[in-house]
């Protein structure tokens, strides 16, 4: 009894974990990336882009419902056998490592740009890595609670960003449909990449105590993320216009320059200080998911050694995050990470469903 409650989260907390895995530093760059493809119609792209995470949540939930008592690794080993299953899990872990190293790197770049211009990137990254290990070592319940409280902080912060909407020029999003179907679709795909994080559900499904509520929680989470992205993209579009947006590296942060606050000279600093917890959050959640999979794969005691698995994961993220030469190569890699999301978030559950269908309920291991 005690064991069960100490390692499960509520479906309400799952909402925050999914949101926390989705929203990272990427939200600041999203308006530029989407409007680059879809122009004035970027907001339509955001709405359409949400289809993919919805689909991903739906597929993973169905998968979990098919095999409710099995964790992600058990499923892989059971459906595909030891060898193929292990490869699938290792691929998942590798994806998390690559993806989260990008998240962490972008976040560190922002911190370096605004807060610590003279501090080496390696030091900033080290601190983020330490937070990943520290938070993850406290276990899934603490992780969920932290996601919960950081979500409320985050929403408050995003409200600050939306303040300049008062000075907006609504003609900036007109005419509707200018980009054409093709542009909107390309923009939607770009947005879909920003929704990466729903795949955390693959691992977290078995950790939720009321599994019948997972679908609802997942959909609510994606809805909230969509709304926040939409608010961000529309505000940026209205305030800056498409053309200006292309020249701004982090349009979301630029919004803070628009509004004037009496005592503090530059708002983005204060904003970033509070954002710090949120920037590392996707890496914390996904890193935890990866370490859990790793310790399950190696068949070691999760409770005892998960922290060591996490240390290994965090170290790998740290090293990988140091590899890209500059921010430009990071942005280029984001596109590949997006494909990774499609494979893990959509391809994996589809593949599993297929295998489960073929096996007809019989497990290999």
């Amino acid at each position: 009894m005690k064991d069960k409650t100490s390692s499960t989260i509520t479906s309400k907390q799952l909402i925050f974990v999914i949101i926390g895995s989705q929203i990272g530093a990427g939200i600041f760059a999203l308006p530029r990336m989407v409007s680059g493809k879809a122009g004035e119609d970027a907001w339509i792209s955001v709405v359409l882009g949400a289809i993919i995470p919805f689909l991903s949540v739906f597929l993973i939930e169905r998968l979990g419902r098919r095999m409710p008592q099995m964790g992600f690794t058990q499923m892989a080993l059971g459906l595909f056998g030891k060898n193929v299953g292990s490869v699938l899990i290792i691929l998942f872990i590798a994806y998390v490592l690559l993806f989260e190293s990008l998240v962490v790197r972008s976040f560190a770049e922002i911190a370096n740009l605004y807060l610590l211009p003279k501090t080496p990137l390696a030091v900033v990254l080290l601190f983020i890595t330490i937070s990943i290990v520290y938070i993850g070592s406290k276990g899934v319940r603490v992780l969920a609670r932290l996601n919960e409280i950081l979500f409320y902080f985050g929403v408050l912060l995003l409200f600050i960003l939306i303040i300049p909407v008062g000075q907006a020029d609504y003609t900036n999003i007109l005419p509707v449909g200018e980009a054409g179907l093709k542009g909107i679709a390309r923009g939607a795909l770009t947005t879909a990449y920003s929704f990466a994080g729903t795949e955390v559900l693959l691992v977290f499904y078995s950790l939720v105590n009321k599994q019948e509520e997972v679908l609802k929680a997942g959909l609510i989470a994606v809805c909230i993320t969509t709304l926040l992205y939409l608010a961000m993209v529309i505000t940026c579009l209205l305030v800056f216009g498409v053309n200006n947006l292309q020249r701004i590296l982090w349009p979301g942060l630029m919004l803070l320059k628009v509004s004037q606050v009496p005592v503090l000279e530059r708002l983005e600093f204060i904003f970033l200080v509070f954002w710090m917890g949120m920037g590392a959050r996707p890496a914390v959640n996904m890193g935890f998911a990866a370490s859990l999979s790793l310790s399950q794969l190696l068949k070691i005691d999760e409770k005892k050694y998960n922290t060591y698995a996490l240390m290994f994961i965090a170290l790998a993220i740290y090293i990988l995050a140091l590899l890209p030469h500059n921010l430009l190569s990071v942005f280029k890699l984001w596109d590949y990470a997006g494909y990774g999301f499609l494979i893990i978030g959509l391809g994996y559950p589809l593949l599993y469903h297929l295998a489960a269908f073929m096996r007809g309920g019989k497990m290999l291991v």
Partner: protein
Amino acid sequence: MKIRPRKTPPTADARDRSIKNIPDTKLPVALSEKMQLLKPYIEKNYDIITHSFYLEGNPRLEAVAVYINQVIDIEILNLHILKPLMLNCDREDLLTSGSHTLIETIYKTSITASRIAKIANLSSLVQTIFDGITILMFDGLDDVLAIDIHGGKSRNIDVPPAEQTMRGSREGFIERVDVNIALIRRRLRDPNLVVEKTLVGRRTRTEVAILYIDDIADPQIVQKVKDRINQMDIDGIVASGYVEQFIEDDPSSLFPQVYSSERPDKLVPYLLEGRVVIIVDNTPLALAVPALFVQFLQAPEDYYERTLFSSYIRLMRYVAWIVAVSLPASYIALLSYQPELLPYDLLISFSKARVAVPFPVVVEALIMEIIIQLVIEAGLRLPQQIGQTVGVVSGIILGQAAITAKLASPIVILIISVSVICTYALPASSLVLSTRIIRLPMMMLAASFGLFGLSFGAIIFLTHLVSLESMGVPYFSPLAPTRFSDLKDTFIRTFMWKMNKRPVSIPSHNPQRQGNTGEEND
């Protein structure tokens, strides 16, 4: 959650090790033999008084009273026990009908002796004497009577010096556990209020009372508290702080996980919310678990004053805590790393004030912080009059001198003083202590990494707070995990008549607090 490994509960055998060397022999009939047996254990102790007397009869029956001086009420012993016994009890009666008559007689003739027990063996006889219980031994009766007439001098019920109040009760706990329990009983006449007593400490054998309301408190939490107290294996406790450190979930945390107070009117509402109160003998501070973080920022006056004012003051306390923890750190970070964040004019006045100071900002701030901490420590133990002198000397003379000697800028003195004032605006002394400590790592982080360090510190402390538990209850609730129904009594304090449910953050099996709803009240 990490709980430090607890040893298996000590067996009854191990707990009684201190009296184990006393043989468990049955007491003999003859008084002289009894005294002979008892003699080695009490003869070295000047304060144990043996008082021989005779009961009526032919020949007169010899009896002895054994007690510790000043621990029992000597007047009751003389007037209500010894005198009636000497006058009304016959030797013949006693020897024919045995000790039953004797107990009967004492009950009937003495109004104050309420608890009488019989003792038949030596080891419990010795222990009973040292527990402060009066012993009566009679020649020709093998049973020995133990009469609980505790007395002696103790402090009067007084205003609690560390927790003054404007509107609440002026009564504070004293050092006697029974008086403290009575103070709570008087305020809470519920028959469901359970008072359980256990003894803690092999040698001190201190009475520890566990109080809870049976039909509100969560039985799992009550059991957990009892288990942890019973697992305490220590030779002596002299204060409730010992118990606190043994029962808290994370002893290495900076944050207090057990609420302590010396005011009964603070603890009664906690009992009503389903918490468990622990009162330790010889300590005027009672403990309440499970404790929540927000609880340390709430004062009982919040409920005595009117809602609007209470909410305002409560919000101010949250501001005070944040300022107390982060103001010096922010000052260091801003001035040494991100001066561009400050408005131009403010920055100029800051740097003008610092122009003659030869140290970096962090050194300057650290010096002042350490001096202030030492001043607080120095003033704490001195008599009040001298304590004030220390305060004045440090406040006016030291501060001025430091500025004139160019050791510190006026700004840094202002910053540190504000943060100290904010620290002491917090209502709970245990949170004051942790706030004083947290300030230091935050300053260090700010000095090394500026605002980034500050936010790193914040996320680590937030994680730590969120991960803490008190008796298995999430410490940072109702904030995380968020319990919206409890938020009406967290940052603000809503109207009394709207708080119909008990807080859900504290598990209880009786959620309804009061019947009237807001609608009916219109």
